[in-house]
């Protein structure tokens, strides 16, 4: 028996099963189970005293009702939508423009393009700290530049003005994500055969027509993947909120993923934290499904 097991591992499929089984077990234990546990908690009463016990009183949909009844629920959800949509729009357009520019293929293009990625490898909290300082009201360099160029006449209090606090985080997040978008879109651009452009130029298409009839259709799956990835990364953004506005003032820059943490670790209301997490995780899963679908033929290729 032991001998058979040994030879299966050394020479047969047992080796593969072992290699893939351990990590999957790990993932299921530390990612999958928390996921289910989260859903379970959203139907339970959880407070600081019942934290240690696994069996807690069930309260049905009370947590969901209470959460929806909170006045800040819908504003925060709306903030989340604005944050996601504007961040993705900004990252994608800037990233695409830069990718097209660097696709011209001059000396040093790939080195400079690679440098952009520093924004992506820096710790999110450091990026947040830098932007916090740049966006400072009285002494921030952004206000100075905007005033010096005549774009604004009064300082904008990015972090403390409820009209601007969300935008402060969005600006920082666009900066953070543009490079990654650009790199992925560059790969897509590089994959378009150059003779397609030459053929369409011979057919009499101008630059703009070539962009619309060749670049965009050929990039469809890449664009789909980049936007879905953008959605996933944007919904994961937490550090910038912690470093720039802490969701304030008065929840004006709060979003679901930061609120969930605040409920659990600031107000110690783990049940509500789990509830909002459950709602958001379902949203993210749907985004992930879209991503998988958009890259499906690449996965299978």
């Amino acid at each position, binding site marked *: 028996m032991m001998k058979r097991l040994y030879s299966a591992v*050394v*020479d*047969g499929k047992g080796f593969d099963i072992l290699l893939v089984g351990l990590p999957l077990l790990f993932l299921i234990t530390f990612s999958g189970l928390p996921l289910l546990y989260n859903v379970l908690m959203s139907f339970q009463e959880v407070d600081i005293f019942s934290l240690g016990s696994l069996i807690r009183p069930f309260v049905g949909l009370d947590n969901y009702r209470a959460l929806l009844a909170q006045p800040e629920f819908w504003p925060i959800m709306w903030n989340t939508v604005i944050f996601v949509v504007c961040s993705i729009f900004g990252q994608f357009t800037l990233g695409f423009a830069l990718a097209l520019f660097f696709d011209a293929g001059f000396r040093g293009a790939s080195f400079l393009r690679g440098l952009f990625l520093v924004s992506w490898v820096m710790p999110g909290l450091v990026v947040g700290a830098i932007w916090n300082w740049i966006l400072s009201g009285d002494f921030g360099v952004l206000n100075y530049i905007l005033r010096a160029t005549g774009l604004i006449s009064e300082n904008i209090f990015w972090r403390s003005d409820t009209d601007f606090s969300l935008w402060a985080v969005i600006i920082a997040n666009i900066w953070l994500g543009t490079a990654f978008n650009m790199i992925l879109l560059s790969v897509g651009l590089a994959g378009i055969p150059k003779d397609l452009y030459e053929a369409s130029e011979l057919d009499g298409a101008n630059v703009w027509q070539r962009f619309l009839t060749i670049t965009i259709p050929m990039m469809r799956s890449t664009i789909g993947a980049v936007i879905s990835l953008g959605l996933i990364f944007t919904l994961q953004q937490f550090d910038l909120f912690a470093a720039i506005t802490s969701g304030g003032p008065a929840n004006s820059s709060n979003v679901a993923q930061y609120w969930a943490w605040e409920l659990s670790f600031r107000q110690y209301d783990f049940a509500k934290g789990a509830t909002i997490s459950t709602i958001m995780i379902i949203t993210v899963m749907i985004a992930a499904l879209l991503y998988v679908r958009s890259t499906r033929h690449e996965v299978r290729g």
Partner: protein
Amino acid sequence: MTQQPQIELVSVNKHYGGFHALKDISVTIAKGSFVALVGPSGCGKSTLLRSLAGLESITTGEIRITGETVNETPPRHRDVAMVFQSYALYPHMTVRENMSYSLRLKRVPKTKIDAAVAEAAKILGLEDYLDRKPNALSGGQRQRVAMGRAIIRNPKVFLFDEPLSNLDASLRVHMRKEIRALHERVGATSVYVTHDQIEAMTMADHVVVLKGGSVEQQGTPLSLYDMPATKFVAGFIGSPAMNFVSGEITGDGGSVLLDLPGRPILPLARQATPGRKVEAGLRPEHLSLAPPGVPAIETRASSVESTGSVTYLYCGGDPEIIVLSQEREPLSSGEPVRLTIAPENIHLFDPQTGLSIGQAAG
């Protein structure tokens, strides 16, 4: 020849899910022989070879190497060497390390390894390249390294998986001879997979023709050429391919009436069932221009190609008949021609089953 066969395949079957890849294959391979597995792509020849190596498992049946059943034996305990189509040279090792890899795994003493590498390198003419990495070699040199990696082990069986298909035409002809010479020199048993019937015919002592996962026919190269058991083998072996014309045995059973314009009647070398529908197979090299008065196929040359040594005549249209002549035929396109063939060279096949109807024996 009471010697124990080197390899025996007994009713080997292989299923991939719902796909029946190998169907009841039985082949016996004598020690020291060179066997070619040949067939069109998807016929199962590579799967069969990989099953021999132990890289694939078979569903039912038995594989024996020197009498020992190896169905469950992992590749490393089968004592077989394999030359892959892509050569599969380890890119991070030098030629010397590639060739000595298997001996180093067996913990053979270093002096013995060095001697073995030196000898293999000498046989293959690789002495000057031993410290290069594979990506610094030409296609032909890589091929030699792959062979060196195999012969250095002195295994029970050599397996070749289309080893020449990545080489250009002239090198391929050269390597064909070299592999054959190497086989004679080391005297080991070789199993060689190819889709190229010329390779199979020129190199092997024993050819196994596979089609759709089963053995269509096996035998010596010339027996396959002279006595194809099926229409498939007849069409597969020989170049240019055999011409097929449908027809019918005449009332006296001694001739065949061909389904061609002019309804030609050709005499057969032996009796057949009168009135039977047949497919007649006529090899291009057996057809020739008929002298007057001989029963012949009356047709027209649609094009004439001469290579200098031989002439190809393309005659008629439906079906087209190709003639290979050793002469310089003074013909031009559109001219009428009369074709004849010796009665013993006419092959007959059943139109439904494709099986040979015992003609052209001898």
